[in-house]
């Protein structure tokens, strides 16, 4: 159950090839249309794709993280978060501890990135960090680690690049078409009747290709979300943690400021869930949250087989959502008891908020120290003094 889920991977590769074929076809037709030579277009398409690939391969993580305005933290910045990531790394058997990032944003979201298991990162917004208790945070981090472990990140990046190339190519072609006049007048030698049909096909494809590729992309992405949910339940042995975290995520209406369309499938919930969107939307990167919660809550054990059963029960269908290779030879997996909160819920909430805000201050170079009177002092990075006077009680504290 812990190895690469191979049939899922095969299906994903097939879909990736599908998107790739759309890209090549589009390139060929555009080439035929503009240069009267399909191969020229193919070359353009492949060059665009190759450049984007190279950029993504070497800079993808840092681009994504910097676009999202995520800041890397160390253990002392937020011990609880760091500990939980390490716990999930152990539970999933991931080889190396991923880097941990915090995004200073009141929206509730989280994502994972990294093209292989050895160079992965997990990012979470400060808003989510202060809302979730330990079990819930564990569920969310388990979901993100599962994305890394199941190689979803690599797949989504690969598909994302293909999709991006298609969109880019269509965009360039449509601009040239709109503002560049008719390119066919320059090559009057080719026969008109055959050319006309190809022009129409090319235009139609330019419009349809990005949409089709996007639909495939989203279909893969949705499947992967279910698998990551199931894996999170398995790692934590506690589906309710993720379910209750998703409930909090669903209740929030705040959109993430730094997300965009291309990075959307990376997040734990779709950052652009607007109001009035139908439940089983084809253009959604994520399954509806309410359904994910219901599946997690109907699980009678924590294994993949239990998730599959719950999925079929909630959806009322017998169509498998998890790959067959994940379902064999698991044995019984019991759900554990919830871990008790060390303090009462209200105080726990206040403490989480303080913990998170301190982590954010530290991320920005501030140092927080505690005076004996109970006041928290935030020392800005420009202050060079060796001591500071507490404004509350007047004690002198070392910085």
């Amino acid at each position, binding site marked *: *159950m*812990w190895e690469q889920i191979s049939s899922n991977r095969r299906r994903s590769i097939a879909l990736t090839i599908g998107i790739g074929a759309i890209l090549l076809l589009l390139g060929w037709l555009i080439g035929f249309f503009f240069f009267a030579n399909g191969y020229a277009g193919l070359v353009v398409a492949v060059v665009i794709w190759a450049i984007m690939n190279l950029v993504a391969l070497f800079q993808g993580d840092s681009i994504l993280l910097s676009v999202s305005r995520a800041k890397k933290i160390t253990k002392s910045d937020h*011990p609880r978060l760091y500990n939980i990531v390490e716990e999930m790394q*152990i539970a999933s058997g991931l080889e190396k501890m991923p880097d941990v990032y915090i995004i200073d944003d009141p929206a509730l979201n989280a994502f994972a990135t990294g093209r292989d298991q050895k160079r992965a990162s997990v990012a979470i917004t400060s808003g989510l960090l202060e809302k979730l208790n330990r079990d819930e945070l564990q569920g969310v981090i388990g979901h993100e680690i599962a994305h890394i472990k199941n190689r979803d990140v690599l797949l989504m990046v690969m598909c994302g690049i293909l999709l991006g190339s298609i969109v880019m190519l269509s965009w360039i072609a449509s601009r040239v078409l709109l503002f560049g006049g008719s390119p066919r007048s320059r090559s009057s030698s080719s026969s008109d009747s055959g050319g006309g049909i190809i022009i129409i096909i090319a235009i139609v494809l330019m419009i349809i290709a990005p949409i089709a590729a996007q639909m495939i992309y989203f279909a893969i992405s949705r499947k992967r979300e279910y698998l990551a949910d199931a894996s999170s339940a398995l790692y934590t042995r506690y589906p309710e943690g993720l379910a209750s975290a998703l409930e909090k995520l669903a209740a929030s209406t705040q959109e993430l400021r730094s997300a965009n369309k291309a990075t959307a499938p990376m997040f734990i919930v779709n950052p652009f869930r607007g109001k009035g969107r139908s439940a089983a939307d084809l253009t959604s990167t994520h399954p509806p949250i309410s359904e994910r919660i219901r599946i997690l809550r109907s699980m009678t054990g924590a294994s993949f087989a239990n998730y599959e059963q719950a999925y079929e029960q909630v959806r009322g269908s017998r169509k498998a959502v998890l790959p067959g290779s994940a379902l064999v030879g698991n044995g019984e997996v019991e759900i554990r008891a919830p871990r008790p909160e*060390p303090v009462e819920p209200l105080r726990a909430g206040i403490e989480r908020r303080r913990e998170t805000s301190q982590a954010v201050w530290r991320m920005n170079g501030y140092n927080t120290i505690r005076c004996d009177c109970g006041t928290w002092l935030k020392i800005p990075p420009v202050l060079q003094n060796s001591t500071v006077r507490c404004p509350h009680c007047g004690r002198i504290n070392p910085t």
Partner: protein
Amino acid sequence: MPVGAIVGIIVGVVLAIIFGGGYNRLVQLRNQTRNAWSQIDVQLKRRYDLIPNLVETVKGYTKHERETLEAVTKARNMAEQLSSAGAAERAKVEGELTSALGRLLAVVEKYPDLKANQNYLALQEELSSTENRISFARQYYNDSVLKYNNSTQTIPYNVVARAFGFKSGEFFEVTAAEERKAPKVSFT
């Protein structure tokens, strides 16, 4: 070439593929269980290192809890001594340490000053995370052992396992029923 020789070569090649592949697979699975075991080891050591610190912090705030503290220290030293023993034996002493720690944390309930101490709060986070890590590492180890054992008992791996002496792995089970639950770290 006679037909017999060709058939012989083909059978030989097929057998070599099955045996070679099976051997590699079993080695891979066995290494996985070994890695998983070393992870448990790392986390248990981490707990040994945390305990003296915890005992010191608690000592400063409490007066009448010497017995509980001594029980924890004793269980810790005992577990550390047996740290090179097999899975089953080790699980037993570690289980005792877990329950001794549980009793200590329950005792701390009576001391609100201690519970508000920053140092103690940080220690408590480390301790509960360590308990979690131990149980996650154990979970992963047991799953790896299950997978490895299943492989050594099914065709075609069982033949390879017998031929090259792959022994089945030992589970890391927590014996007492009360210890299956998460350690009590409740401070309501």
